[in-house]
């Protein structure tokens, strides 16, 4: 009998705790913004960079009094560079944390996988760096603060022909990545239109470590430029192996190269290669220089493009919430779509009717073991 009483007491106490837990509904004191990034795994340096930029911008926003009189708070989730994990954590952000807005993901494949979820819940998703054109076609709640692959690929082709005087291009793309395929086709289209010839197109799959076979085939068709629209891990190995096979052609890539890992892996082989990206810390404008010096103070390193994009994205999002005067999804979405000439550190950002950002592409050249500013290509 005694036992029964004790058990029923315990039972009621537990039920009581659960019920009060459910019933409690406090006024939200902070504005919570969801952030989803690859903080570990294959793309971890991208995720870490964006996080640094976002957190720096957060500090500045909160120091200036936050947004709508409230402090802004980030809920940062790691997707381990995996599509399925990303879907799980985004679902968590949407249903458990009920964030009004999500920043992320870094790469196109994963963003494409989570965008339909955000669209269904009518929560704006703003990616700082997914450049594949299809990302924002998912629906009217999906935005980006970077340029798209079509622009990037064709600007790179223009650069190859006009500045590097290239006539014969080889392409080595990653067939597992929407980003790489999109960039390769945009590059090839413009390159051909401007009188160049794509002499050899080869493919690999993300995670490969040996590219000698493909490079040997490309070398045999004697190109004067090889376009490698991949991500840094493979790109570093490709550059290294290309130079080992004594390939003399210029090597050119997109913003997937923008990580210190490329130089770490490729070493001296990377000398003289070019890539396009969103931002260079060497640009002279006062806004960029101030950002670079604050960033250096906080993290003791130079910001890369992804850090700058992360920084711009949070600032842009906060300004949209301010203008909307609420965190309600529909109104924030409308204000995001209205963004015009937003002065970011990655250039002036205008959101166009397809919810893509219009902004310049920066070409960097690797010289003496460091990426240096080479030229800017306007949209």
């Amino acid at each position, binding site marked *: 009998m005694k036992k029964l009483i004790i058990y029923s007491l315990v039972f009621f106490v537990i039920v009581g705790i659960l019920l009060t837990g459910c019933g409690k509904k406090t006024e939200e004191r902070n504005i919570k913004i969801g952030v989803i990034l690859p903080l570990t795994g294959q793309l971890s340096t991208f995720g870490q960079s964006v996080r640094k930029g976002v957190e720096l911008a957060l500090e500045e926003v909160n120091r200036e009094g936050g947004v709508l009189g409230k402090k802004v708070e980030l809920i940062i989730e790691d997707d381990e560079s995996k599509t399925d994990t990303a879907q799980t954590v985004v679902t968590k952000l949407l249903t458990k944390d009920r964030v009004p807005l999500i920043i992320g993901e870094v790469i196109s494949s994963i963003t494409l996988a989570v965008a339909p979820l955000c669209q269904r819940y009518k929560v704006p998703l703003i990616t700082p760096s997914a450049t594949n054109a299809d990302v924002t076609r998912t629906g009217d709640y999906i935005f980006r603060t970077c340029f798209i692959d079509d622009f990037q690929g064709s600007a790179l082709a223009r650069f190859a022909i006009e500045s590097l005087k290239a006539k014969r291009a080889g392409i080595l793309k990653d067939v597992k990545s929407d980003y790489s395929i999109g960039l390769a086709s945009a590059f090839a289209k413009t390159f051909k239109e401007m009188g160049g010839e794509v002499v050899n197109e*080869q493919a690999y799959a993300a995670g490969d*470590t*040996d590219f000698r*076979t493909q490079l040997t085939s490309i070398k045999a068709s004697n190109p004067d430029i090889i376009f490698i629209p991949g991500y840094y891990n493979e790109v570093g*190995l490709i550059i290294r192996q290309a130079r080992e096979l*004594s390939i003399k052609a210029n090597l050119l890539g997109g913003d997937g190269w923008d990580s210190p890992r490329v130089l770490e892996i490729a*070493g001296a082989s990377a000398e003289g290669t070019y890539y396009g990206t969103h931002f260079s810390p060497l640009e002279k404008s006062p806004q960029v220089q101030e950002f670079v010096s604050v960033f250096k103070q906080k993290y003791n390193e130079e910001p890369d493009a992804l850090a700058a994009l992360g920084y711009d994205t949070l600032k842009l999002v906060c300004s949209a919430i301010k203008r909307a005067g609420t965190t309600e999804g529909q109104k924030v979405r409308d204000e995001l779509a209205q963004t015009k000439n937003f002065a970011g550190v990655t250039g002036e950002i205008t959101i166009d009717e397809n919810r893509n950002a219009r902004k310049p592409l920066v070409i960097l050249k690797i010289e003496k073991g460091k990426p240096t500013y080479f030229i800017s290509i306007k949209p």
Partner: protein
Amino acid sequence: MSLFFQQLINGLAWGGIYALIAIGYTMVYGIMQLINFAHGDVFMAGAFAGYVIAQLLPDKSSLPSVILVFLSAMLFSTFLGILIERLGYRSLWKKNAPRLSLLIVAVAISLLLENVGLMIFGAAPRSFPSIIPSRSFSLGSISFTNIQVIVILSSLVLMVALQLIVMRTKMGRAMRAVAEDSEMSALLGIPRERILSFTFALGSALAGVAGVMVAIYTPQINPLMGILPGLKAFVSAVLGGIGSIPGAMLGGFVLGEAETLVSAYISSSYRDLLAFLILIFVLLFLPSGLLGKGVAEKL
């Protein structure tokens, strides 16, 4: 034509690596009829052992430190191989447990090693220090690197050494006896357990060397790097005739070249597909492989 030879050289290096791993599969299969799926991860562990030692050495590219890196990778993977055999397989084997139980243990150990690797080193790939600075050579229009030459030559040397151990030493003779008839050899006083340990040690040492070779060749390592090469080495072993050591060597080189030629002349997207097509084809039409003896299953 020079393009063709260039591709052959590219394929030869991977062929040698597949062959070294395949030998471990085939030897263990010969003795206990087990596909040791943890073998690919022993290969990974060897690469990481070499990585850790290379990080500790002050002068990474001197000859003694290169030798030290290889030796420590061999020692570590040998130790790991023996440990796996002792803790994972031996008691089951002695009890004549069904082969399926052994196979399940093998898969479990493989997952265990991968996840321990992920715990310690994380999922992000790491650059292997360039303990052998790469240099390119040209022979006419064919270019190759010193690392390719080292990989190909040392895998050949190791295979010859292994063949000598198996054919000329007492231990080797005992191994062959156990492989031929395990119970009879036990009756004749051959210590089966010791032979089994020895077999695991030999196979794992070769896998460890292969691990460091891949690490230097590509040069990148991660805790899941053993899965695909492991599976492909298994395909090589089946292709050459599982249980046959020369078969595993031949299978490794054939697969390495076939993969390279497929990605050179058809499409690199089909490279990984090819290995498994070969596996299906061999199992259907040539179950005893290229060099295997067509022994009927004992009932």
